[in-house]
């Protein structure tokens, strides 16, 4: 247990098919993926909606049987030792299961009881977790009075009641406003500092860049890339991206004129992305071609561009 590089989660040829066993018409959500998550690491699963992220998370949470392959968590098999594994996981599901019949504090207490913790331990821990989630003031309030961000923080506090070794977060900031997202990131970063292993799915590349030490990119049930955010950017993109926007009428003509000016050109519905090693030079070349964009922006390549390169699609489609 003291081995810091210990593998806590190991998936081999992991597959999830929805539908009856043996039924050929079943839907394959996860299509034979391999990955490892090590102790203390913040591991991200990046992908568009429907890529298989949530199915993967549910299998890891031991509430969804593995169709094929093996999934071992803390050395145990998810099929046989589900209860033992769940006892040491903290789960923050996409659809939160906060109980609106109970108050904020009661949600922590009652959830903790499911783990067989004593009331004495729970009173102490819930006070500490409410503090952590910045919800102490709201302790006695009905859950209905919480904002989206507070509700999510309560879900995270609740997931920590059993002092889990691994915390699973399925799209933790989806639907939150920017301020609430930043507060949540700050809290998750604190958890990471405390040595908790985090496994999170997201379709926000800034979230992945902020929080993840290492990540995999999923597309159509498969892992298409793996590495640290910096590695992925270095491996799959050029250094910079030139973003151009055009007036609707002349868009097509302008795009044609830009061909050949950059190694990769991606057409998005609202803008044109030119991957290049030097954005300013490319912009000069664009101007020399007589192209007149409405706006032009040079920026560093990001995970968004990695995703676009790998899948040909934008993350937020």
């Amino acid at each position, binding site marked *: 247990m003291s081995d810091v590089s210990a593998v806590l989660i190991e998936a081999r040829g992991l597959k999830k098919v929805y539908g009856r066993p043996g039924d050929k018409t079943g839907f394959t959500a996860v299509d034979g993926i391999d990955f490892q998550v090590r102790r203390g690491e913040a591991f991200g699963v990046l992908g568009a909606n429907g890529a298989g992220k949530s199915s993967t998370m549910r299998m890891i949470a031991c*509430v969804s049987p593995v169709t094929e392959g093996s999934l071992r968590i803390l050395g145990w098999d998810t099929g046989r030792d589900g*209860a033992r594994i769940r006892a040491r996981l903290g789960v923050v599901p996409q659809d939160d*299961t906060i109980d609106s019949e109970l108050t904020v504090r009661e949600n922590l207490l009652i959830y903790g009881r*499911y783990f*067989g913790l004593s009331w004495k331990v729970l009173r102490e821990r819930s006070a500490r977790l409410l503090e952590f989630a910045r919800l102490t003031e709201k302790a006695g309030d009905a859950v209905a009075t919480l904002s989206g961000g507070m509700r999510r923080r309560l879900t995270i506090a609740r997931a920590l009641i*059993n002092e889990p070794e691994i915390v699973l977060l399925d799209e933790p900031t989806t639907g939150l406003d920017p301020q609430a997202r930043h507060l949540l990131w700050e809290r998750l970063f604190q958890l990471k500092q405390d040595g908790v292993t985090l496994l999170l799915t997201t379709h926000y590349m800034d979230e992945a860049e902020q929080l993840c030490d290492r990540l995999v990119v999923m597309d159509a049930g498969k892992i298409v890339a793996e590495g640290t955010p910096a590695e992925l950017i270095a491996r799959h993109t050029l250094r910079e991206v030139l973003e151009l926007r055009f007036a609707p009428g002349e868009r097509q003509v302008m795009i044609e004129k830009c061909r050949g000016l950059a190694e990769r050109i991606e057409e998005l519905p609202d803008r044109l992305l030119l991957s290049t090693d030097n954005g300013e030079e490319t912009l000069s070349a664009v101007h020399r071609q007589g192209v007149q964009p409405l706006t032009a922006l040079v920026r560093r390549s990001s995970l968004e561009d990695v995703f676009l390169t790998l899948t040909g699609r934008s993350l937020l489609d």
Partner: protein
Amino acid sequence: MDTLARAFSAPAFRELGYWLFRYRRTWRGSIVISVGNPLLFLTALGLGLGKLVDHGNSAYLQGHSYLTFILPGILIAGVMQTAFLEASGPVMQGALPRGSYRAAASTPLEPAGILYGHLMYWTLRAAQNAVLFTCVSMLFGTVDPARAPLLVLVAILVAVAFASPAAAWAVTVTRPSQINAMFRFVVLPLYMFSGTFFPIEQLPDWLRRLAWLTPLWHGVDLGRTVALGTATTSGVLVHLAYLAVMVAAGLYVARRTYRRRLYV
């Protein structure tokens, strides 16, 4: 024995704890209903309809007043109705994506533990209702205190016999309208035609045979014969066997439907 042993294992008690915790908010109202319900029946039937019926001096009542005859039936039918309602709506809600069952399923609890914990809660609620109802009835002299404990036990058995299959079904349901339909087209007709309000002996032959098959009649007849002291060994055994099969079959199916629904 395996089923019984698991029912008393700790995880199920954690689920029971959840429902009892929630019940803290509504217990006062539920007590008022449990006491008020028999009071209404005692008044309406004892002072109203009962006078009319007793005037007819029906041989089907075997010398009992209509009120004495009908009270065990009202209790058992009411217990069935409550068991159905508590084991359908809340179960469906619990199994929805944001439901309480989902929260419990992400902890060490297994679907069977969730089922047994909730079942214990229904059992306790039925016991509470039956005890209060019977006590109020005893105060009015309509239930013999010596036989009252047996009547309460029958009521609890009926609650479990109906709650188990109801939960087995409700956990697969996703729309409240399905539960309303089941209540209207199955539970209410049972309430009406299982000898709750009248002896089924006075029904036409074909309807009586149909009533014999209904699960509620077995509960009502068991409760009534026990309360009135007219029970026969063979009758009791048939009723008990029928209700026991409902419990066993209900739990057998529920264990599977719970697992299938919570572990997708």
